[in-house]
């Protein structure tokens, strides 16, 4: 079953069109990597799905609901969790408060407090430094620590689909490994769908799953990550990108 269906999405900033006519369908429990050169429109696409930069054209369905033009909070409440590019921590809140921010929408469910404590412990296990600093101010964390925090925070909302814009940004290599391990573990645990933007295809080759390559606001390649590997097609996509 398709969890997320995009039809003909277009994103514009004034005169500039960042995403042009992207159509895409992602199945429940899939791992999807989006790669592509700088300025390809990857972040813009994610922001459009999340409802922060509404798409100027096209429709988006999530979990059977039409979420086109819906407010970001409503989309989030359906189980779409997004980690945007750059570290949007709530700098004045403590680390633990940051992790708690997104957990309010489940407050209606039964036993949610116990579940929340469990989730929190799981995040702390993945990133022990966060536990160590749990009452510290988030804004004072180092770049990489903040990145851990925002990933942890997104996981705390217990999403159906988590969309991460460049998870490895600023992370030490071994931490990046841990992040992926955790994501893959969650995926097998409760069919979490992953939508990950990475600049390079290396990680996709390693992890496997579906890989999309974006360029100039369009999806130019769509295939199995391991199969595509460092294939000529991928190379072409990258080198077809005229730098300046």
């Amino acid at each position, binding site marked *: 079953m398709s969890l997320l269906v995009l039809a003909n999405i277009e994103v514009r900033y004034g005169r500039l069109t960042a995403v042009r006519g992207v159509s895409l369908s992602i199945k429940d429990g899939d791992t999807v990597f989006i790669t592509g050169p700088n300025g390809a429109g990857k972040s813009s696409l994610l922001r459009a799905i*999340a409802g*922060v930069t509404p798409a100027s054209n096209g429709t988006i369905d999530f979990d059977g609901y039409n979420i086109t033009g819906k*407010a*970001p*909070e409503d989309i*989030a*409440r359906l189980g779409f*969790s*997004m980690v*945007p590019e750059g570290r*949007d921590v*709530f*700098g*004045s*809140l*403590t680390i633990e*408060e940051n992790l*708690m*921010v*997104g957990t*309010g*929408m489940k*407050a209606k469910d039964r036993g949610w407090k116990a579940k929340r404590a469990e989730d929190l412990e799981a995040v702390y296990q993945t990133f022990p430094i966060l536990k160590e600093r749990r009452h510290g*101010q988030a*804004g*004072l964390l180092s770049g990489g620590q903040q990145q851990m925090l925002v990933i942890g*925070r*997104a996981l705390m*909302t217990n999403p159906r689909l988590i969309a991460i814009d460049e998870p490895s940004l600023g992370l030490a290599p071994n931490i990046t490994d841990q992040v992926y391990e955790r994501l893959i573990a969650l995926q097998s645990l409760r069919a979490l769908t992953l939508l990950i933007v990475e600049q390079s295809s290396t990680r996709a080759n390693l992890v496997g799953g579906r890989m999309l390559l974006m360029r100039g606001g369009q999806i130019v390649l769509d295939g199995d990550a391991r199969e595509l590997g460092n294939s000529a097609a991928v190379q072409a996509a990258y080198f077809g990108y005229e730098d300046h």
Partner: protein
Amino acid sequence: MLQIVFDSLSLGSLYALGALGIALIFGVMRLVNFAHGDVIAFSIFALLWPSTDAMAIVFAGQLPWYLLIPFVLLVGAGLSVLCEIVVFRRFRRANPATMMIASFALGFVIRYFLLMLFTSRPKSISLLPMLSQPVEIFGARLPLLQLITIIATVIILIGLTLFLRRTRFGLEMRAAAENFSMARMLGIRANRVIMGAFALSGALAGAIAMIFGSQTGTVDIQMGASIMLMAFIATVIGGLGSLAGAVLAGFLLGAASVIMQVVLPVDARPFRDAFVYGAVILVLLFRPQGLIAARGTKERV
């Protein structure tokens, strides 16, 4: 001596309440809400019938206190929320200067609206006259109203702090304050949260209006302005975003004003405010981040 302490506290508590209302909105939107003073004035004018006569025609002012107080608080909260919906919502992405000028323009609109209904002439009203009786505690005599004001301020401060620190609403409000769009991406109904903050701030304005109105017996379209200014200053020297700081600074400003009044020789007393503002500058120079720096005001490189 004790008398001076009470005098300081009672003046300070007005500033502190004002500072809370301003700090709350500043915390949420980086908005220096210059319309706050006019919300104060509006809340109290709501007790009168519109008329251009010199004599005030009391409308809701004669309600018993247990209805009167909620009425004024509701009017403040309602107007404040209305301002949010009609005006401030459109300025979520604007820079602070733009928002500030917009709030100033809004205050202007409210003020002249009142002026149109009531004229510029101050009107008199007797609110909660029973509070004008003097009471005596620890040998200091002060009007009952002042005592109640002091106590109310402290209770409001504690309640508000607990509310913001301990409840989910507080957490969501602080999150929305810091990064509106990220908060929404985490499922926070940010608009509602912000409306809540405006409601609280408006209710505080109503509280000030009540106290001020009962204390002075006068309602005047300008009445919120000077409190609003002092409150604004208190918010900043208290440490932006820190409610406790705002309250502390409010009390300190009250104390500074009272103490200057007491110690300055009679010829220098008219210059009292210059001394007070001089002290403000000194505090800012030594603690630019405020007396109680809120977390997150320090930005790391």
